[in-house]
Structure formats: structure tokens, C-alpha cells
């Protein structure tokens, strides 16, 4: 409808004429086909392909896009969908009324969404898996870039195994930067070298029920699926190994070059899931919205107040903060290096001012469980408020509470200072008073 309002009337007139010309051309081609290629057109598919193998055949759409109508006949003949024939999927098309005089496809996206229904007729399980995925969640949010079946699986050239091969895996089309990082990682190198056990995208993310493994502890579970002895092996040298596996994501150590950050997830203690973004969290500042004049993110006191507000009396589901050490970007998360190059020096994180604790985000669950991050001031990790607000996340040394350092120094000075001052006075007084010693009891 928008086109009708914004485009001049002559555009519609031209489109109508073009469509009419298309119908005439198709009719001519069909007529020629019947006479020239009777063997092909003898079958229903042959009738379709008579027109739909014509190079450059496309349909102008109301949104200005063009829908390609040419089907590569050879590819289709070799695809696993070939036995189904055209009408196996295009069930609503009948030759007498095709092509329709009035356009029934408004946009390519709308056509793709409509044809998903055809896919689910046979691929019910895969479709149901997809419906639980982040991709489906994004589609339902109106994200036009989120993939449906035909975005990943070329419907007229589907061949078994294509989506599972490193050179043709469909994920790379949208996630090119991540795929490049993966390709250079130990996983990508091994996969390309022919090791079938080395993971490809779907190995960690799922093929159709695609999820974000970095959500909560999902990544650890994904890694442990293959690296089954990882906990035991780390336990030979890493103290508190179970805790490290819970609060440190694998890439935080296995991507030494990555920028690390602390992800404080607002977590519903009853449902054991991150609280949804829709609950409305005040005082949050998106990291990408920061400017020289913008505040440096949520400060310790505001986080404390926020949690007090979320956990006000009467609220049954308490919100707690679950902290995890992550890498900053999805690209970095895929740059896994061989184990011998991973970080093993505890001081990397357990010293004051460690790089890992200079960046802090607070996360809630966005659509499909994709974490939504908000910037937080790094002081939330070292403030006295952290005892109450982020009681569950602590790295000895690295996120120590600074005010306690003053107490430690005072205690040391007090203990030694008392001994030095009191002892010196005893010596001086004894010297000047020339008194014999009479004290006898220890302290």
C-alpha cells in the first residue's frame, strides 16, 4: 500500500504492462516448448521447466525487488527434492491460472516465509527445532535478515551433506567474520584438514535449534560434549577447577589474544534463567551508546539499588547476579588456539588491575535468549557494595574489595607498629629509670 501512495501512477501502469508482457512471453515460450521439446514438456515438471529454465526470467514485485524465476534445471535434477517435482512444494499453483494476472507475491521475504510452510510438511522435526531457535525468535521480532529454511538451503539445489561441509556450510553467508575466525582456529584448521570430529558451526550451535552457547553456562556444556575429560585434565593443575568451569568461559583462556570482560547476568533464582529485557531495567546505558559525555555505565551503588528494587518485599522470584568471565566479541569466541597455547598463568586474572576486569557488562535475556548487554562501571567489582550486589562472582586478587586493602595495611602497621613503639619505649624507660625488670607474663 505504501508503494501506491509514494509512487506516481505511471509506475503502476508500467508494472501492469510488464506483467502482461510476461504472461504473453510465457504463453509463447510454452507454445514453443510444446512443439520444440515434447519430451520435456510431457511431464508436469517439464511443463514448469519449459518456462522456468529461461535465463533471466524474473518477476517484478510491488516492493521494487525482483523475484528470480529461473530454475537451474541440472541442479534441480540432481537435488534430493527432484523426485518431489515442482508441485510437491508449489502446491497452490495450477497451470490454467499460472502465472496469475494479479500479483500474489508482495516481496521475496514474504514469499520465503510462505514457502516455509511447504518445508515443514516433510521436515516437521527440523521445522519444530527451528521454531525454538534464535533465528525464529528474530523472525518473530520482524528481523528481515533472520534466516528461514530457504536462506540456508537452496530449495531447488538441495543436496545431502552440502550444509555439513566446511566450504558450503550456509552459516558463513551471514556470519562471515565469525566464520573467518573459526576457519583460522584450531577447530577450523582440523576440520579443513579432514578431521570429521572437529566441530563445524552446527556442532556447537545446533543445526536448526540454533542457540547462543555463550548464554550462561551453555558454552561450557557445548565444549565438554567433545572434550569429555577436560574437567579432570584441568584438575591436575587448576585449583577449584569446578568453580573455574562455572564462571570462566572456555575462550577466556583458550583465546589468549581476546579482550575479556565480566558478564554479570541478572538471573531469576526460581526459573534459573536470565530475566527478560522486557521487565524494564532503569539506569542502563548501552555500551555502544556511550559518548565522551555519557556516564561510564552502571555504578556500584546504582546496581545495588536496582537489585534492591527488583527484590523488593513481596517479590517471589528473586533476581540474583551470576557473573562469568567471557571474551568480548563473538568473533573472538571462535578464535580458539591449541591447548598448549592457552593461558595457564593464574596471575593473568588474579592480580589487581587485570585486563579481564576492566570491562563489565550487565546482561538480560533478549529475544530467543540472545543476551542483551548493558555497560557497567568496572568499580562494581571492587566496591564494598559488591558484597551484597554481586556476591556470587569473585576472583581472588583481581576483583578484591579495595577498602579491605586499607584494613589489611592498617592491621600490619598496627601489629608491627605497636611492637616497635612499645618495645622502644620499654628500652628507653628502662635505660633512664635504671629499674630492674619485674614483668614476667607473656601477652
Amino acid at each position, binding site marked *: 500500500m505504501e508503494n501506491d501512495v509514494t509512487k506516481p501512477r505511471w509506475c503502476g501502469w508500467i508494472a501492469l504492462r510488464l506483467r502482461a508482457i510476461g504472461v504473453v512471453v510465457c504463453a509463447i515460450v510454452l507454445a514453443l516448448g510444446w512443439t520444440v521439446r515434447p519430451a520435456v514438456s510431457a511431464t508436469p515438471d517439464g511443463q514448469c521447466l519449459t518456462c522456468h529454465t529461461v535465463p533471466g526470467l524474473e518477476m517484478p514485485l510491488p516492493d521494487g525487488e525482483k523475484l528470480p524465476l529461473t530454475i537451474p534445471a541440472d541442479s534441480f535434477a540432481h537435488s534430493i527434492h527432484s523426485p518431489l517435482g515442482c508441485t510437491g512444494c508449489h502446491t497452490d499453483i495450477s497451470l490454467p491460472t499460472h502465472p496469475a494476472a494479479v500479483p500474489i507475491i508482495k516481496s521475496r521475504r514474504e514469499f520465503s516465509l510462505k514457502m516455509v510452510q511447504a518445508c515443514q510438511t516433510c521436515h516437521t522435526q527440523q521445522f519444530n527445532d527451528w521454531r525454538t531457535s534464535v533465528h525464529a525468535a528474530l523472525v518473530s521480532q520482524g528481523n528481515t535478515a533472520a534466516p528461514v529454511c530457504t536462506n540456508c538451503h537452496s530449495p531447488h539445489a538441495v543436496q545431502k551433506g552440502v550444509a555439513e561441509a566446511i566450504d558450503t556450510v550456509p552459516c558463513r553467508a551471514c556470519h562471515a567474520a565469525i566464520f573467518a575466525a573459526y576457519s583460522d582456529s584450531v577447530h577450523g584448521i582440523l576440520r579443513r584438514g579432514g578431521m570429521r570430529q572437529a566441530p563445524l558451526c552446527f556442532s556447537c550451535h545446533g543445526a536448526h535449534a540454533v542457540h547462543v552457547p555463550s548464554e550462561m553456562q551453555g558454552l561450557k556444556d557445548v565444549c565438554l560434549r567433545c572434550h569429555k575429560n577436560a574437567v579432570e585434565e584441568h584438575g591436575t*593443575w587448576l*585449583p*577449584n577447577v*569446578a*568453580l573455574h568451569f*562455572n564462571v570462566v568461559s572456555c575462550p577466556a583462556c583458550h583465546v589468549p589474544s581476546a579482550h575479556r570482560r565480566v558478564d554479570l547476568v541478572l538471573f531469576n533464582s526460581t526459573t534459573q534463567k536470565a530475566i527478560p529485557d522486557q521487565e524494564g531495567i532503569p539506569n542502563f546505558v548501552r555500551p555502544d551508546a556511550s559518548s565522551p559525555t555519557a556516564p561510564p555505565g552502571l555504578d556500584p551503588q546504582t546496581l545495588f539499588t536496582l537489585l534492591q528494587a527488583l527484590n523488593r518485599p513481596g517479590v517471589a522470584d528473586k533476581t540474583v547476579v551470576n557473573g562469568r568471565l567471557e571474551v568480548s566479541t563473538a568473533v573472538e569466541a571462535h578464535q580458539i588456539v591449541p591447548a598448549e597455547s592457552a593461558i595457564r*598463568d*593464574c*596471575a593473568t586474572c*588474579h*592480580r*589487581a*588491575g587485570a585486563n579481564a576486569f576492566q570491562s563489565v557488562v550487565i546482561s538480560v535475556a533478549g529475544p530467543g535468549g540472545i543476551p542483551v548487554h548493558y555497560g557497567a562501571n568496572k568499580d562494581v567489582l571492587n566496591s564494598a557494595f*559488591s*558484597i*551484597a550486589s*554481586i*556476591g*556470587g*562472582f*569473585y576472583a*581472588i*586478587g583481581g576483583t*578484591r*574489595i579495595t577498602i*579491605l586493602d586499607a*584494613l*589489611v595495611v*592498617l*592491621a*600490619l602497621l*598496627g*601489629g*608491627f607498629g*605497636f*611492637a616497635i613503639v*612499645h*618495645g622502644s*619505649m*620499654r628500652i628507653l*624507660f*628502662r635505660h633512664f*629509670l635504671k*629499674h*630492674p*625488670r*619485674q*614483668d*614476667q*607474663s*607473656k*601477652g
Partner: protein
Amino acid sequence: MQRIYIHALPIRIWHWINAFSCVMLALTGLQIRYVGTIDVVTFRTAVMVHNVFGFIVVANFFLWLSYYALSDKRVNYLPNLQVARFIRGAMRQSEFYAFGVFKGDPNPHRVTKYHQFNPLQAMTYQALMLVVLPIQGITGILLWNLTGFAGIVALVGGVRVVDTVHVLIFAAFLFFIPFHAYLSTMGHTPLADYKAMWDGYEEVEEGESADGVE
């Protein structure tokens, strides 16, 4: 001077193991907390040594507890319920440490088998052995295996609460260790009390205790 056998062998063993272990715990504790500033050993080594001495102190605590539970000397660790008398004694002892010791006044406390500690010592050691050390041991064990004790850790408010309590007591020990070592030089010779804790015999002057208790 009179030699009185005060410190039984189990207590002397406990004391010196405890003393050495607490010093090691304090040093490794400083190394763990201030890695990057203090780098005598690696963080991992410091943690391992800290854990070992932590368990030694815990086991040693039960040696101490068993001895006093089965011995009639347990009275040394029972609180003085005569509050006014206790306060008078504490004031007198404080006055001695603050002024008397400089003037050469006699120590108002006389050590006996069933009255080892002056009022200030008694108060300090009771708090230390019956409250502070057990809490430090418990928080240390929780920090040693946070996932194994996750339920308890969550119940008390999370790892930061546990660690903060552990660090507060750590600070108290950082004060107490040099303080205690110094006050132990206030015997009739600077090493008299150290010697007593080594061989078990206290050398005391004959006469009535000025804090009123024999």
C-alpha cells in the same frame, strides 16, 4: 623464682605447629591477595601451600580442642562470669601494659596451672580459639571448594561474603601475630616465655597474684 610445669606437651606441639602454620598462612595469604605486587612464588604455588597449611591448622585445632575437652585445664578457656572482677583485672592489666611496664612495676598476673592467662589474654584467647579461628577455618574450607559447598555459600550470601569474612579475620591475624610475638617478650627475660612454651616450664616469682586469682 619458681619453675612451674604449665604447658603440657600436646599444647606445646599444638602451639608451635599453629604458630608456624599461621605465619605461613599469613604470608601465602598476602601472596594470593596481592599477586602482581608480591611475587615471591606463583599464585598457584601460594594457593597450594595456603591450602595445605589451612588443613594443618584445622586438624591442629581439633588436637587443641580434644586436649582441653578432656583436661581439667579447660577452665583456662571458660569465660569469667564474674564480670566486675573480670573488668577490674582487665583494667589493671591494661594499666600495666600502658604505664607500669615502663616504670618497672610487677606484672599484676601470676601464672598458675589453672589460671594461665591474665584477663586480657583470657578474653583474647577465648575469642580467638572459640570464635575467630573456627570461623576462619570454616570460611577457608568453603573457599577451598566453592562448588562443593555452593549451597552453604549461597545461604550465607555468596562467595564475596565468605571471602570478606575470611579477609577481615586475616587482617586481625596480621595484627595479632606480631602483637602476640612482641608481648611474649615481656617475661622476666625477653625469651623467657618462648622458652616456657618450648619446655613447658614457666618461671614465676613467688607471691600472690595482684589480679586476685591464684
